[in-house]
């Protein structure tokens, strides 16, 4: 049983169309701990000890957030700056996170095709999220491809919210049950291009 920690960051949840339903769904999965960072730290006074001990209690760390300027909302950066300390997360003595799994679950306004070398953003989403991947590497964690929800602004109009949320629910469930092929997930460009290809065996 992998213990999963979802660190959710959305500064305007009242306007969230897909992130909030996804986060709500995550809360129903057994073995997933859900943290709303903006609710826990509305004035950004992050409790480092609390966050570090929570990291120690989990095997998979997910940053779930909308993509803001090719990165995460500000509180995730603040969280990383403060919690991933030298000699905790990295450095000679910093082996606390060694071997854990980390990835971003991110919603993007534009379509999948825009996040390609030939697309409007001139790079793959995974490439754009390089700071997270490098952070994971430095902490000796295994970084998986981003779980991306593209064209997030039109999901509602196209009636695809329910489908997206339930996919996320099954993915998280499989993750807690160690039914995700981590090698394949680590090598992919995203986890959502061919979602079925990462599941090991059939639903139990």
């Amino acid at each position, binding site marked *: 049983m992998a213990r999963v920690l979802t660190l959710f960051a959305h*500064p*305007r*949840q009242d306007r969230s169309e897909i992130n909030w339903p996804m986060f709500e769904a995550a809360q129903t999965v057994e073995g997933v701990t859900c943290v709303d960072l*903006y609710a826990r730290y*509305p004035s950004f006074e992050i409790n480092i000890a609390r966050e570090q001990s929570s990291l120690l209690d989990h095997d998979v760390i997910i940053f779930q957030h909308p993509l803001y300027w090719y990165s995460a*909302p500000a509180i995730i950066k603040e969280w990383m700056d403060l919690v991933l300390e030298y000699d905790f997360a990295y450095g000679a003595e910093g082996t606390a996170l060694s071997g854990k799994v980390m990835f971003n679950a991110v919603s993007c*306004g534009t379509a999948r*095709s825009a996040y390609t070398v030939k697309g409007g953003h001139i790079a793959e989403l995974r490439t754009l999220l390089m700071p997270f991947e490098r952070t994971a590497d430095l902490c000796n964690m295994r970084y998986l491809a981003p779980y991306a929800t593209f064209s997030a*602004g039109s999901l509602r*109009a196209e009636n695809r919210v329910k489908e997206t949320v339930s996919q996320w629910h099954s993915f998280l469930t499989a993750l807690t049950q160690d039914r995700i092929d981590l090698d394949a997930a680590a090598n992919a460009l995203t986890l959502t291009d061919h979602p079925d290809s990462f599941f090991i065996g059939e639903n139990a």
Partner: protein
Amino acid sequence: MEILSHAFVYLVAAVVAVPLAQRLGLGSVLGYLIAGVVIGPILGIVGNETADLQHFAEFGVVMMLFLVGLELRPAMLWSMRGQLIGLGGLQVTLTTAVIAAGCMAFGLSWQSGIAIGMVLALSSTAIVLQSLNEKGWLGTVGGKSAFSVLLTQDVAVIPMLALLPLLAVETLSPSGDDPTAHGAMLLDLVPDWAQPLVIIAAIATIIIGGRYLIRPMFRFIAHSRLREVFTAAALLLVIGIALFMTAIGLSPALGTFLAGVVLSDSEYRHELENDIEPFKGLLLGLFFLTVGAGIDFGLLFDQPIILIGLAFGVMIIKAGILFAIASIFGLRGADRLLFAVGLAQAGEFAFVLFGMASGMGVLPVDLIGKMTLVVALTMILTPAAFILYERVLAPRMVKTNSREADTIETPGSVVIAGLGRFGQIVTRLLATNGHDVVVLDHDPEVVENLSRVGFRAYYGDATRPDLLHTTGIEDARLFVAAIDNRDKLTALVEHVAKHYPKVRILARAHDRHHVYELEKAGAHCVQRETFDSALNLGRDALIELGLHPFRAERKKQAFRAHDFETLEKLRERWNEHGVDKGYIDTMRSQNETLFELMRDERDEKTHGDRHWTPPPCANPDP
């Protein structure tokens, strides 16, 4: 009526001469002396009664030593022990030895020599401290060194008081043939071997009594909140100790000095200082007046060259020794010169000690008359010496001094008035960040609790200008006005802004109008006392009502910013017209914009909270 007419003469002399002397840079001690000279030897208005008056006025000296003791916190003395024992100790002993040797060369006995040496070794704390303070030299290395020497001298007075009787020459020995001085005192009633025990017991009584009896007594009296009773208690304490010491046969000055030291780290120190200070000032002034009135001017006219020569001689010897000591302790350039020139005079303690010495037969009366004149002359020459230093000596040292000037330290402390629910938080934040904080409050319980946990908290009414002054507000960097009473607070800020223009003033306001009043009164930074806590509670309420914590926090921030904007907009109107129709209109329109600001419906792009608005749904690929 005779008493009143005498009082009238003395008061007129003081009121005319002292401010004049101050203005001329001579200091108040010289002012009193000169006034005494004018009404005594020159005009002959006063005469016989001066001797009686002097005995009464000597009580001013007892009070002065109480105040000196109050200033000497044991912890401070301990932290300065190197300077005090080294610089100060060397100065006192070397000067005493050299002057004693000089006296013996002139044919005086060694006892007289040591007595004169001790007395002349002391400098004038009153004149020097005042001059250093006025010129702003107290923070320089030279000024600081001078201060520690003066401190040593203040302490050295106590052993000198004890030593003087032992130096009496045989004609008037303390063996018991002077019944007026040693009549029914306890020390003479016990056998010789028991005398040290009696002395130790007396000192122990004062120290233990001061700690466990007097402090609780002041606490009790402070609770009554009657200022004049507190003053009466302070006077009672000084007079009581003086009587106690006299009854035992010890110096009353020694007793009050000890009591002062014992009370120096109590929370009532400033209040005691303020209560005793005026009495001491008047009595000491009277004492110096009587000294001046008693000066024998015939002597000066008979032997002007010898006396003036002696005065210069004393100053040159003292300055020479000071210069040598300064060199040993690494003082250079202008600092060394300031130290040597500044402390070269003899001081006001000389009059006190000479007065005692004549009573005990330590020194012949005619010699004391001459020495009193010499001391007065050195004091008169001191302002000239400072001018010599400032105009002639220091400018030559500019090159070596320019670097040392960097070491000037400003005290940099914070004075906080009001230790209530508001001031306490400010105090703790600043003090725990290592800032030197002095706090004043009129609630004895609060003061006690804070001083128990190690804060420098003092009892007293911060709106009293004299008390405020003793906190060192002149040199403080910040003044925090946090008292409860709205009108008193405004008056306090106005007073501080007017009299201490260098201090930054931070004030606690009751409401928006009070903010404007305080700004007008001269406050640099004003915070409404309940504003932020009310906002926080409002935010908590929004969360309880189901709003996301971060949304609630943002709304709080938006509300706060809008309120500050309102504060800005209304300030000018209020300053010019007070609360008129325009003021109310502005408030009303501000209220409307607040409603708009708080609205955040999804599609409302033009106003309301627009933070983190996503791009339109039909966002094309870039």
